[in-house]
């Protein structure tokens, strides 16, 4: 187990290195000059060139790369070209917002999706099953930002229960007010995914011999469904949840903008617009790390859900 984790983390380092190199080159290939963007459109070429020099952007790209790698190895990810602040600090300031939103919407998605999926599976081809399938399809096909606007119109304007600017903090009530609508907006889409996977995984398991055996020997139906069947259907659910976590963090970009929440997504958009190379590099490290960690956790969760899975 420990060996497995260590090996996976070692692989993660290789992945990180590859991603970093790719990002480093890509962001520089894209046209756009950070110095010009910082100084604005009334600055002369001379002023822009002077700033480029100060930012080290006039060095050959391989030299910039070496400087960057040397810094990265020391744990120095550079400073944002726009704000002049260390990249890591800027990322850490908003990271909690994104993580909270992701986790709460994931929990919401599982809490809604798993019971609905199970319920639909055991009522296969009945009205309730169709209703669940149609609504989950609707959830999947609905653009998240549209859902977000509808939620705002309903629960911030028509019924003024929540703020439009979902960025309050400081107290539990403020936190709850700020997270509810964004989390519901993302959570419903997650729930749609989870419902569909749970339903199909359950259908497969419910037709297994051991389920029939369990019923035949008189195990109560509820216990058969929740203990025998669901437990065995967990692996595909965990896989989807793990995969979806990555998507969720990506989806949060739009959610953050519509709900005016701080977060990684907004930081990324800003860094892209401003061609803030160090910031983009730093953020890619964070995103890659998150995906690698989630994959690792997913693998570990397989072992917990199904003791037959051996991690080597």
């Amino acid at each position: 187990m420990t060996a497995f984790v260590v090996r996976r983390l070692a692989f993660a380092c290789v992945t990180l290195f590859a991603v970093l190199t790719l990002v480093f080159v890509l962001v520089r290939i894209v046209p756009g000059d950070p110095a010009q963007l910082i100084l604005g459109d009334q600055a002369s070429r001379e002023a822009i060139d002077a700033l480029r020099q100060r930012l080290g952007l006039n060095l050959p790209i391989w030299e910039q790369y070496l400087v960057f790698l040397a810094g990265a190895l020391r744990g120095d990810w550079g400073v944002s070209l726009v704000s002049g602040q260390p990249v890591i600090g800027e990322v850490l300031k908003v990271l909690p917002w994104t993580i909270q939103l992701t986790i709460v919407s994931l929990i919401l998605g599982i809490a809604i999706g798993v019971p609905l999926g199970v319920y639909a599976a055991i009522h296969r081809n009945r009205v309730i099953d169709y209703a669940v399938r149609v609504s989950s399809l609707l959830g999947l096909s609905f653009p998240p930002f549209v859902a977000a606007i509808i939620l705002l119109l309903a629960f911030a304007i028509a019924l003024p229960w929540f703020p439009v600017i979902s960025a309050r903090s400081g107290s539990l009530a403020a936190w709850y007010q700020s997270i509810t609508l964004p989390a519901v907006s993302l959570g419903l889409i997650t729930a749609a995914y989870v419902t569909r996977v749970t339903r199909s995984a359950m259908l497969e398991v419910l037709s297994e011999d051991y389920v029939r055996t369990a019923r035949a020997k008189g195990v109560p139906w509820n216990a058969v469904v929740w203990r025998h069947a669901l437990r065995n259907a967990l692996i595909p659910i965990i896989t989807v949840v793990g995969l979806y976590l990555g998507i969720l963090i990506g989806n949060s970009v739009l959610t953050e903008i519509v709900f005016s929440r701080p977060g990684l997504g907004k930081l990324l958009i800003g860094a892209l617009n401003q061609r803030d190379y160090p910031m983009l590099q730093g953020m890619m490290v964070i995103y890659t790390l998150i995906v690698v960690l989630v994959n690792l956790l997913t693998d570990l969760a397989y072992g917990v859900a199904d003791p037959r899975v051996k991690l080597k």
Partner: protein
Amino acid sequence: MKKLVIAVMGAAFLAAPLAFAQKKSLVVGMGSADAGKLDPHIASTTPDKGLLSWMFNGLVRLKPGSINPEFIEPDLAESWTSNPAGTEWTFKIRRGVQCHHGYGEYTADDAAFSIRRAANKATSSYSNDFSAVDKVETPDKYTLKITLKSPVAGFLGYVANVNGGNQVCKKAVDEMGENFAKKPIGTGPFMFAEYQPQQFVKLTANKQYFRGAPALEEITYRYVPADSARDLAFQSGELDMIYGKQDQVWMDRTMKLPGVKVVAMEPGELSVLSLNITVKPLDDIRVRQAIAYAIDRKAIVVFKGAGSSRVAVSVVPSGYLGTDEKAPLYPYDPAKAKALLTEAGFPNGITIKTIHTTLTGMQTLIEAVQAQLKKAGINLDIELVEHATFHAQIRKDLSPIVHYQAARFPVADVYLTQFFDSASIVGTPTAVTNFSHCNVADADIRAARSATDPAKQKELWKAAQEKIIKAVCAVPVYEQLQLWAWKDTLDLGYQLQGSLNLSPPITEKTRFTK
């Protein structure tokens, strides 16, 4: 499930009602995701400039609410004089002005420091504006003397409360260095208090403000990038003042809200098509004239909305000191355009490329222009790229036609110099935004810059505009005004016609009436 729904709704009720803003505190919603560098000599975006303008003063200022450079009034300088040649300027600094947060008295030293800082390429986006500055001296604690190498048209504008004219406190810059942009220190009615990334900047009243303590106690400047979210938050009362979506539909819709004031203010950003006169087929003046004849400026204004836009009058925005309000622009005449094209050897029409930004307001305009040009047999091939790419590529001469939309300090010289003086041609070391490679009006632009007789100066500017129009270096299209909305219980404390910082000034007199 039912229980869960009830629990969630119950909890929502518990948390409601929301706390509304106190009426001594103003909450502004700005359409950007975050603050940039909050340094008045660096900031070049509308969101940053607007916020900083509430914290800083100039040596002189434009009357709040006005953008007319002929009505300049004292700010940190109580009075000023200049020699007849306009090359030596002496400013008497107001006594007893305090820098924010205990950084001491603002004196001539700070003034000299600010001018030098704004003139320095390494610390300023506006160093160009001060290229004529020769010496900055402080004969005594309250006197500042600026010597120019040559006279500068509208020099006072460069030391006014906009861009490089903003006055910083030396001690604060020295102490904080790069961190000055994290906690900007000025002398204005409001002081920097707090910054939360991607959320807001909070300003508090400067009780020692030399014009008197502000009526408002606090300003929260919130970053709300989504237009829809800003509108909704304004409706729900979370925001008192918002930066509008810059189009007529928004304006019409917002005006229908109760208790709301919607304003389309100066300056108008002039939308111009710069035609690169050095590349084929635009090097043929007949092709350029054809483009000019093919554009129906009045129809564009109908399309853009008459409340928020107006017809372009010249290659310089209207209302500037020196703008020729009756410049001889080409009338709309598609038949003539076609004839000119045929004459130039393109009887079957012509295709010309433009690299264009995806910025919505600008994109809808170029599409309207494309439709108009089509009628004259000119096929405009629009290559859409995102905004930063656009800025990079047009500066590399990659776009034969460049659509640019901008407002500048309202003296014709600034616009003419940046867009039409050959020194500003893109690709050169002194490049600014001359995308057309225009060089036909250099003599007039430069002579006007150092002309000391105002009447003569205006004549030279007029001549320059005529030459540029005649050579069709650029085709002006329309002007976009700045749209804002606020609760009608907010009294700005002055008559608002416009603001050079593109945000309404919030002064010591701004207050809520209820």
